[in-house]
């Protein structure tokens, strides 16, 4: 079935057409943005299901331009009466808004790349199937006298964008995710898997890795604060990379001179071993053909061999700073602190396996993931956070002991300049509720600063 023939596609595009037709008599320009979200989530802890939810909603956002003034209104009912009222509300708001000096209408239609972001079978996953996946993890944990917690979830996102300049696009995407935190007397282990299809999730492997890490974590020793060489597993790299994405590739702070890459474009800013791109079309991720302006997404080289090569833009920032949109418009109802940034970061894999990294390390720390990372200085990308889910001390090429969780405080720009080796496989990661992804390999860094330890 073609995606436009889908029942929801028809209903969404019909609602968009009604809004655009209604608004053309009331405003100079009009655009609408429709998000449909179905989220089914089975949550477990202490080896049992504790929560089982299915939520759905759709939000229609109407944005109008009237004599250089902008107004925006939104609703979650798609009947004509509500949609008409929402258009009128946006127009009324615009009448009171100050004239926006840079407002120039909405973008015109462009060719959208054809991507397949939706797995139809995943839309039909049942509560029983999700519970069975949970049981796989729970039974393996329980048989090892461990307790498991985590979630299995499926998200279906429908997105439509239309405007009075001719944009009219619809897309449907799916995301399935399983994660497990397995806990012992003192140890814990984490593993996760994110795929486009529920039926590709590797729950048994997630259970195996989380259990193994948990068992290895028992009896952790405390390491003194200081600088250590580290191996960041894929999830840990992905977490730091996501902060780099938000803080370094925000076009507004970049052009205002407040960003890490301000006045550094074209210069080497990270290790020559690192290449990073915005890769929304990659088949192995959660591919996405267009953004919230309705403009095509595209691959953008951000860092090539350590050199800053690119920035991402939406239509408005592109026009403001004399660049073309890269298809990175954010959801119009995002809070203002959610800035324009890459949505599908991809750090290219290298050639070194994790086993080889460990074998090469004289003394250092293996980190599974981080927890509660905070930004201490945005321009310098100075971050702090804790390790979690399995932290291990390496000596003479072998893991010799689990380590109590450590607090790091480190400039990521510096850390990513200390790369000894890049892992041979990039793994896909995503965060709860979000369809954005980060694909990242293991990284071996010569130094990383830890300034404290937790009690566990």
């Amino acid at each position, binding site marked *: 079935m073609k995606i436009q023939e889908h029942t929801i596609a028809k209903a969404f595009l019909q609602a968009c057409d009604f809004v655009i037709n209604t608004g053309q008599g009331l405003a100079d320009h009009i655009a609408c943005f429709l998000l449909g979200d179905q989220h089914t*989530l*089975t*949550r477990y*802890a*202490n*080896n*049992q*299901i*504790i929560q*089982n*939810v*299915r*939520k*759905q*909603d759709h939000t229609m956002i109407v944005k109008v331009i009237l004599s250089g003034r902008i*107004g925006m*209104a*939104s609703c*979650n*009912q798609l009947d004509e009466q509500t949609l008409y009222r*929402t258009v009128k*509300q*946006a127009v009324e*708001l*615009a009448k*009171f808004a*100050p004239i926006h*000096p840079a407002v120039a209408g909405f973008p015109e239609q462009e060719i959208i790349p054809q991507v397949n972001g939706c797995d139809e079978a995943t839309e039909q996953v*049942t*509560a*029983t199937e999700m*519970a069975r996946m949970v*049981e796989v993890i*729970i039974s393996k944990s329980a048989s090892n006298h461990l307790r498991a*917690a*985590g979630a299995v979830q499926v998200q279906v996102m429908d997105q439509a964008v239309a405007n009075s300049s001719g944009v009219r696009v619809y897309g449907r995407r799916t995301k399935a995710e399983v*994660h497990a*935190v397995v*806990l012992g007397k003192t140890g814990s282990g984490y593993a996760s898997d994110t795929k486009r299809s529920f039926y590709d999730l590797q729950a048994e492997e997630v259970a195996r890795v989380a259990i193994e890490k948990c068992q290895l974590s028992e009896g952790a020793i405390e390491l003194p604060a200081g600088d250590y060489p580290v191996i960041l597993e894929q999830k840990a790299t992905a977490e730091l990379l996501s902060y780099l994405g938000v803080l370094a590739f925000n076009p507004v702070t970049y052009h*205002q001179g*407040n960003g890490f890459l301000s006045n550094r474009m074209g210069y080497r800013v990270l290790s020559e071993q690192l290449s990073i791109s915005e890769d929304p079309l990659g088949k192995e991720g959660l591919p996405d053909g267009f953004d919230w302006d309705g403009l095509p997404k595209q691959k953008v080289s951000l860092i090539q061999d350590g050199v800053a090569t690119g920035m991402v833009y939406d239509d408005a920032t592109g026009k403001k700073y004399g660049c073309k949109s890269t298809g990175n418009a954010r959801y119009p109802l995002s809070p*203002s602190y959610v800035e324009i940034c890459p949505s599908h970061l991809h750090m290219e894999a290298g050639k070194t396996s994790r086993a080889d990294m460990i074998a090469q390390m004289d003394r250092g720390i293996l980190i599974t993931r981080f*927890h509660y990372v*905070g930004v*201490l*200085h*945005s321009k310098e990308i*100075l971050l*702090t956070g*804790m390790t*979690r889910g399995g932290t291990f001390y390496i000596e003479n090429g072998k893991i010799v002991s689990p380590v109590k*969780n450590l*607090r790091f*405080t480190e400039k990521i720009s510096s850390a990513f300049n200390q790369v000894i080796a890049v892992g041979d496989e990039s793994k896909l990661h995503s965060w709860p509720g979000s369809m954005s992804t980060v694909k990242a390999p293991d990284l071996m860094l010569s130094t990383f600063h830890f*300034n*404290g*330890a*937790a*009690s*566990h």
Partner: protein
Amino acid sequence: MEHIAKFAIQEAEKLGVEYMDVRVSQFIKEEIEIHNGELEKLLYHEDQGIGIRVLVEGGWGFVSTPKHCEQEVQKCIVQAIELAKASGAVRQEKLVLSPVEKAVAEYRTSLKRDPFDVPLAEKMELLEQANAALRIQPEVTVAKSMMYMHREEKLFLNSVGSHIYQETTVVGAGIQAIASDGKDVQVRSYPNTFQGNFQQAGYEYIEGLGLVEEAERVAQEAAQLLQADDCPEGVQTLILHGSQLALQIHESCGHAVELDRALGEESGFVGESFLTSDCLGNFQYGSEIVHLTADATTEGGVGTYLYDDEGISAQRTPLVADGEFVGYLSGRDTAPRIQKESSGAMRAVGWQNVPIVRMTNVHLEPGDFTVEEIISTTESGIYMEGIKSWSIDDIRYNFQFGCEIAWEIKDGKRIRMLKNPFYTSNSPEFWSHCDAIAHDDWQLWGVPNCGKGEPYQTIFVSHGASTARFRQVQIGVS
């Protein structure tokens, strides 16, 4: 609202659920933001929907939908029952609920001036004036002024016959100056970092914030920070203003006393708590002057209500008394596991989400000092204000917080401004070093972005806090 909620209860009972509750709600909000004199956001939003929770065969199922028709509600009930059965099939222990009484009640936020009746032009003028005042300072490269208001009308019905209508109005506003000299970037915010400050009130709260009057100071401090000395590192006396102490309470106490965390139910996501159930009544959390309370009845709190989203009445729950850990935030399915009844702290964000254990308004009770007494009796120390960064481990023990601004205190006086300060400690050690709490600047700090749960829910909570002093704290510079 009434009809569809009653229909849902009747249909679910026909299908033999052991218990069910339903929330039907309508939500409206308005957001305005001005950045550098230009309109960044002007939004009016409305949504409505229904959330249905059922207990069947010992498991919970929850389904929400924006559609109000009977056919959709019937479909949702069937789905919720399927989910509940799947939950019940993977349980090791029987789900026990603490009792709920039938309640019939109504609640409305007390307000003087309905924020949705205030002309938009008046709101714009206030934000434009405040924004212009920030931009007088030439080093300010980004000037932000923002305003927020929402109203939720919520009808709760359950299968024991409760009928609870609550209408909650929340307003907030703030300003922020970002100064840059090309090398460094510094930020100052007022009243606080997360879009200002928030209360359950009418527009009179926004009028009383004095955004225009405070803008000049805020902009000057942001500019002065560019030239300020770095905060000295070392173990020192720390004085925290309420704007930062609110976050400290939030992270190291508020989340730590959530019973679902303590019982391991959040371990798959945000984590557990160092305050395990064996600590209750048996653990010195802080010094004897530390009294922390969860109070869902505080007037003006953004975590204030009459009944929680399980139909349990709002309560004032001591959490830490005379420094000892004495209470948890809990719900009907967690409290019985420590032989208690629900503390009425189950909250859901909108009709879309399932209720989970949340903070209400978690306060540090006022102490015996004035702010002036705290500063004047400090020989040497660092005073910090304004939230800049926050990070705490998965059991709410080890933390590190950065602040927007600091001043060095010498011989009882502020002597110089300092930049990029942070402090780090662990929760019980930090609170055990608290030796002075002020009473004269105690106020409610509304936090709009408390995140928890899967699916992730971002909720409003309040913290009453005043200036307080902590001895021997590790202070650093970022």
